[in-house]
């Protein structure tokens, strides 16, 4: 995570950030240069969102802001003031998994699993926005998410199955 990469100067001013995370109001202080990824993991304590490349190459840290997928390592936490943030923790309802989580398990779409939360959030945004999707929409929606285990076939199949379940 960023804090492990480079020691932060200790004179960065804090800002108060009030937003909604997974339906719950959240109010926290964070350094002005804190990224949304670091805010979610280190300050809110939701470590489901993963950071890998920290430069926009991998898509691991994808979350939804007002339903739109964004790369959480590449935006500042303070930018989400008053917005609704959805992370992987916000998809399941207690022990009831989201259909995408179910299908990822069913097809064995996770190997090391590090890309999985980002892929599921990117796929969730696609299914929310476009009930009718073509194969090309699916490929475009996930083009920013890299799986270094190269498990793409089962990942795509999981999203296709989830789509079929939602739109029979």
């Amino acid at each position, binding site marked *: 995570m960023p804090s492990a990469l480079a020691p932060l100067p200790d004179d960065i001013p804090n800002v108060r950030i009030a937003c909604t995370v997974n339906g719950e109001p959240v109010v926290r202080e964070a350094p002005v240069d804190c990224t949304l990824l670091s805010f979610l993991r280190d300050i809110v304590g939701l470590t489901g969102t993963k950071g890998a490349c920290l430069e926009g190459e991998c898509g691991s840290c*994808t979350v939804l802001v007002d339903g739109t997928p*964004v*790369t959480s390592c590449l935006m500042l936490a*303070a930018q989400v003031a008053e917005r609704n943030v959805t992370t992987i923790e916000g998809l399941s309802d207690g022990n009831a998994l989201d259909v995408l989580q179910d299908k990822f398990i069913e097809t064995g779409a996770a190997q090391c699993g590090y890309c999985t939360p980002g892929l599921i959030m*990117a796929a969730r945004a696609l299914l929310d926005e476009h009930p009718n999707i073509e194969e090309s929409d699916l490929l475009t929606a996930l083009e920013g998410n890299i799986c270094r285990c190269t498990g793409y076939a089962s990942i795509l199949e999981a999203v296709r199955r989830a789509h079929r379940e939602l739109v029979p």
Partner: protein
Amino acid sequence: MFHQPRDIDTALLLRSQFPDATVVNGATDVSVAINHGAMHPRAVIDLSRIDVLRAISHDGEMFVMGAGVTFAQLGRCHLRALREAALSVAGPAIRNQGTIGGNLVTASPAGDGCVALLAMGGTIELVSERRGPRWVNVREFFLGYRRTALAADELVTRIRVPYNPATRWYKIGKRGAVNISIVCCAAARRPDGSFGLAFGCVGPTPMAAPKAEAVLNAGPVTSECIARAVEVAATEVAPIDDHRGSAVYRTAMCRTLTCRLLCDLATGDGKGDADAFSAGAAA
């Protein structure tokens, strides 16, 4: 301090009051610098809540986009080179964040949006709280490696291009998405009939090829004329060797792309991008 103005006047006032503040919109480039420990902003002005900066409009003569128009928005626009350049940037999530204004101000030699604007003949509105607005040609905006004509108290507010040009775009990279250009090229025949040609990743800034454009503008645009423009363009670029590609390869690709895009423009139906876009939508 973190400032999130809702209108341009407030943003300009903040910009003049806090000249050391870091200005962000999508914040994608600034965040990379923060993650790498290269930058620790203590004050930030976030322009992402200024709705008017997200607007796209056109009358018969000009296509105007606010500086906060995202690559996702441009990926749906009528202008082909701009649309294809936008869709070649990163993946959908980053395209929801990154903006055309940020692309200009970051001034990376690999700035895909900058290359499209150079070919189309764009102008940029820079506004200062004290001095008001000025329009600067995109060609005069890039001063050197990641250096621009933007003054310390100015913000980029709008960008406009003559409407409705015929444009082409091609990017060479290592993969189909999340792809930083090794070379990219944009070509345009503008509404006044003049040609624009520009490249990315072949010099310290995104760059136009005015001598090759002059060959084309002297016309007639025959295959011989295009062949001369290709040779001239290859003398105008100044690529370096780096981990993405060699200077020799990049120069060779400049020739290939110049030839390909200009032949495509010359043999096209002569219609502007918007007409082709509408025809596509109707079909």
